[in-house]
């Protein structure tokens, strides 16, 4: 075709498109065919092989891209599916944290109240002990003073008559007890 085109475009001296010597055309055509055949014979497999390899590489890349895309789509789908769960989980964790904080707060308040009550009770008990001790000390002191004063008074008033009366009283009690 190319040769025909070239031949159609050529202008030779004879006014035709083809050269005047047809043998030249024939020889050129044959040579062209031979060269073309050699090219097809010798370089064709390599070129075909290169094309095949290139095609396979492209196919592999396409397959890999497809797999990547599918994986990404899968992850996207999974992530999209998990998204509500994540929200639920976050809500649950938040609820748990809130509950834990509330419980801790409640426990701490209860413990603080218990400690305060214990301290108050202990303080009250100590105050009560001090009060009782003070009352006992005061009572003992008053008792000692009273006893001392009474003994002193008794010593002063214990004359023979009183002594005799005391002994008579003792004997009277014995006689009445019989």
């Amino acid at each position, binding site marked *: 075709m190319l040769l025909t085109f070239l031949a159609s475009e050529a202008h030779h001296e004879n006014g035709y498109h083809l050269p005047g010597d047809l043998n030249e055309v024939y020889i050129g055509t044959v040579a062209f065919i031979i060269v073309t055949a050699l090219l097809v014979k010798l370089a064709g497999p390599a070129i075909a092989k290169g094309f095949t390899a290139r095609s396979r590489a492209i196919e592999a890349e396409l397959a890999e891209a497809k797999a990547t895309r599918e994986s990404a789509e899968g992850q996207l789908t999974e992530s999209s599916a998990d998204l509500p769960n994540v929200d639920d989980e976050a809500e649950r964790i938040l609820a748990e944290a809130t509950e834990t904080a509330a419980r801790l707060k409640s426990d701490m308040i209860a413990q603080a109240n218990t400690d305060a009550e214990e301290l108050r009770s202990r303080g009250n008990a100590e105050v009560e002990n001090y009060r009782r001790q003070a009352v006992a000390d005061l009572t003992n002191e008053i*008792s000692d003073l009273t*006893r001392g004063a009474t003994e002193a008074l*008794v010593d002063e008033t214990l004359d023979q008559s009183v002594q005799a009366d*005391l*002994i008579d009283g003792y*004997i009277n*009690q014995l006689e009445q007890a019989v």
Partner: protein
Amino acid sequence: MSDHIDGYARALLAVADAEGDVATTRSQLAAVARAVEANDELAASLANNLLPADVRSQIVDDLLANKTKPVTRALMGMIVSSGRGRDLSDIVAAFGRVSAAGRGQKVAVVRSAVPLSAAQTSRLSKALGAKIGQEVQLDFVIDPDVMGGVVTTIDDTVIDGSLRTRLARMREAL
């Protein structure tokens, strides 16, 4: 009562009985024993067996000369010269119990701040006898700590009517 104290008490009773006046002897021995008990130095001397027996006996003679009956002085000398000075109070007390028991009596130790009159002694003896159902032999002890009233001890029984105890109860009540 240990055997040796009981033995001494019975020996004293036998001698006093032979002399014919157990009650006076018992009373004088009790008075002497209380006097010795109240005097630590005298008690230590009479109980000191490192002193020769005749020295201890001489102390008794000097102490009781013309103050007690000869039999009382002799019995005291016998106790201290035989090395039983430290048991004097126990022996005399046992003598009182043994002599009282021999007459079917109980010994009542009567402590008072002042001596009892004869009438009071008689009434007390009768009252105590009626209370325990047995005749009692009274041993009197003048004890100023009693302050007033009487404390009577018969065996392990104490009948406390002392002013001291009343004051103590009043203090406890306060």
